[in-house]
């Protein structure tokens, strides 16, 4: 059998894509960029801790981490309020935190504890906080697309200018439901923003081996605006999302954003303990690390005059927040066994 070359995850770079209009684009203030940096750092620190804890065997189930993809969650969610909806996927911790989900209760959920945001019944793949408009991470690839389309319909009916954002991966872009959603969103002018987080891999398969063409172009035949952005540039994501969300709030309908990023960790933690062979080279990961979003944002902030002392202060605050959350989770009780039998019906 021919020895298959390991594919580069994203053959085309974002500058090939339809660009967001730079001329009309607002500039992010330093204050906003700093807030988004802090959010990204919170996601990064939380997930790197989860990786460590997973490796120690302390988690009951699998975790899918978004290390390297934090700019997408942060750049989109800063535009949203608690009355807007998001749906997410199995890689959903970042979206949950960016949408103001409670960190300690999220970690407790991943630990399967009674204090978890779902009472320990959902785990990492189902973290949700409906009071914050987080309709949940989802274990079915593409599962959030239908739910988000329905939530967008509900908000259109309510007429308060709220929107629904669906975060899904490049893998989910190959599910038929995406095309069904684009069609109905276009016909009904739904306040729906489809954010495809193209991290280069469909589980363990490089995108180029399973995805034909460019994902953002899949909106065009439906008359829905589609664009690709550098998903590792939080300002670019913020700008594209701002335009799309404002458009949806104004009743002008849906947008598909392909945010091109790179998954620095595996599809799932500890995957090399069960995969028969590697699906990417370490050199590729290292090369991509140079473009990861936190470093890029930090460079911009340094140019804007943010000092090392300020960064150190933020890091210390975030670390303390994460320490507290894990401590809360580890000290939380297990759920009462009877709770396994509740909540099937209302």
């Amino acid at each position: 059998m021919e020895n298959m070359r390991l594919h580069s995850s994203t053959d085309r770079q974002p500058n090939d894509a339809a660009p967001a209009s730079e001329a009309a684009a607002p500039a992010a203030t330093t204050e906003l960029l700093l807030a988004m940096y802090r959010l990204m750092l919170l996601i990064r620190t939380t997930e790197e801790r989860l990786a460590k804890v997973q490796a120690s065997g302390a988690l009951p189930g699998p975790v899918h981490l978004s290390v390297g993809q934090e700019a997408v969650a942060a750049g989109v969610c800063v535009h949203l309020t608690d009355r807007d909806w998001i749906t997410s996927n199995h890689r959903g911790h970042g979206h949950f935190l960016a949408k103001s989900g409670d960190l300690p209760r999220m970690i407790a959920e991943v630990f399967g504890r009674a204090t978890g945001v779902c009472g320990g019944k959902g785990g990492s793949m189902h973290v949700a906080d409906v009071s914050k408009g987080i309709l949940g991470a989802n274990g079915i690839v593409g599962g959030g697309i239908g739910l988000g389309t329905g939530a967008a319909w509900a908000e259109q009916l309510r007429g308060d200018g709220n929107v629904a954002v669906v975060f899904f991966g490049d893998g989910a872009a190959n599910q038929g439901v995406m095309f069904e959603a684009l069609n109905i969103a276009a016909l009904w002018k739904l306040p729906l923003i489809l954010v495809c987080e193209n991290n280069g891999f469909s589980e363990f398969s490089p995108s180029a081996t399973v995805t034909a063409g460019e994902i953002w172009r899949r909106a065009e035949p439906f008359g829905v605006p589609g664009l690709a952005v550098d998903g590792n540039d939080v300002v670019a994501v913020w700008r594209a999302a701002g335009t799309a969300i404002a458009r949806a709030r104004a009743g002008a309908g849906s947008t598909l954003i392909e945010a091109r990023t790179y998954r620095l960790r595996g599809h799932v933690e500890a995957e090399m303990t069960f995969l028969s062979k590697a699906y990417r080279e370490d050199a590729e990961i290292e090369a991509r690390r140079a473009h990861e979003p936190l470093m890029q944002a930090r460079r911009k902030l340094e140019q804007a005059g943010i000092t090392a002392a300020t960064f150190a202060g933020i890091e210390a605050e975030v670390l303390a927040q994460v320490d507290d959350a894990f401590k809360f989770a580890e000290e939380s009780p297990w759920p009462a066994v009877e709770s396994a039998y509740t909540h099937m019906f209302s």
Partner: protein
Amino acid sequence: MAKKRMVQAINEGIAEEMARDPSIVLFGEDVEVSPIGDTRNLFERFGPARVRNTPISETVMTGMAVGAAAAGYRVICHLFYGNFIYTGFDAIANQAAKLRYMLGGQIRLPITFMAVIGGGRSVAAQHSDSMHPTLMNLGGVKVVMPGSPGDAKGLIKSSIRDDSPVFFLQAAGRGGESGEVPDGEYVIPLGKAIILRPGSNVTVVAIGSMVKPAQRACDELAKAGVSAELIDPRCVMPFDFDTVVDSVKRTGRLVIVDEARRTCSAASEIAATVTERTFGTLRAPARRVTVEDVAMPYSPILEKAVIPDHLRIMEAVRGLMQ
């Protein structure tokens, strides 16, 4: 009280509910022209915001029903033929049936999925399944199967009012059958069976489309001196086991008539559970009268052979009486 067709009764029930609760929305393929008749004139009466035709896209429709319900609406999702439930099954099985549970009770999902099911009209295997056992096994959805126009009205109203996902499965081709339908407010609790005729020798449980042939079978058995108690469960999930168990304790015999295929049919589940609870009083093993494990054929003569009729029900009862 007036004589009405089943589709009229369902239509009346939906219209009454939509009039009393502005959070109810209805969507589905061709609900505007309503090929079945159950959503006729609702578009004209309630307008395009609340009654919407959809593309033929069951995969996204079932997901949308869950999303819109979680976001605060009371949703009626019309899937037309029951077999299209399979097309939209991901969001039914993985979202509707589980999302409230997985989220630790954070949401309610008031959704009524409507469809017509079963055979008898030569529309062949892809339009004739009775898939209620598949839905019963999901755990998180209720399954309603009306046997008469009056019950259809009372049950569609309670299905819509329920805060959980409910499948309202009307027997295909029975929409034109007439019966007495109470006017105005008439609600039947989900999970409550009805004893259609009392009897002392055998209990016959007939589900949905099978109620009518079972009635005929019971009539003819009565002429031959066999007193059959006929029960229509009306709802197979949750199932009113108490009413059936109570009956079987009096009659000592049980026949279950179900248009599902035999393996893992609703009849199988009913037989098992009722037997567990009445073993000491049963005079003979429970019998299932079902479709065999075949797809529904097209040709009328084949279809008639496959679907249980009053003769097969009578044969099963006689077998128990010997």
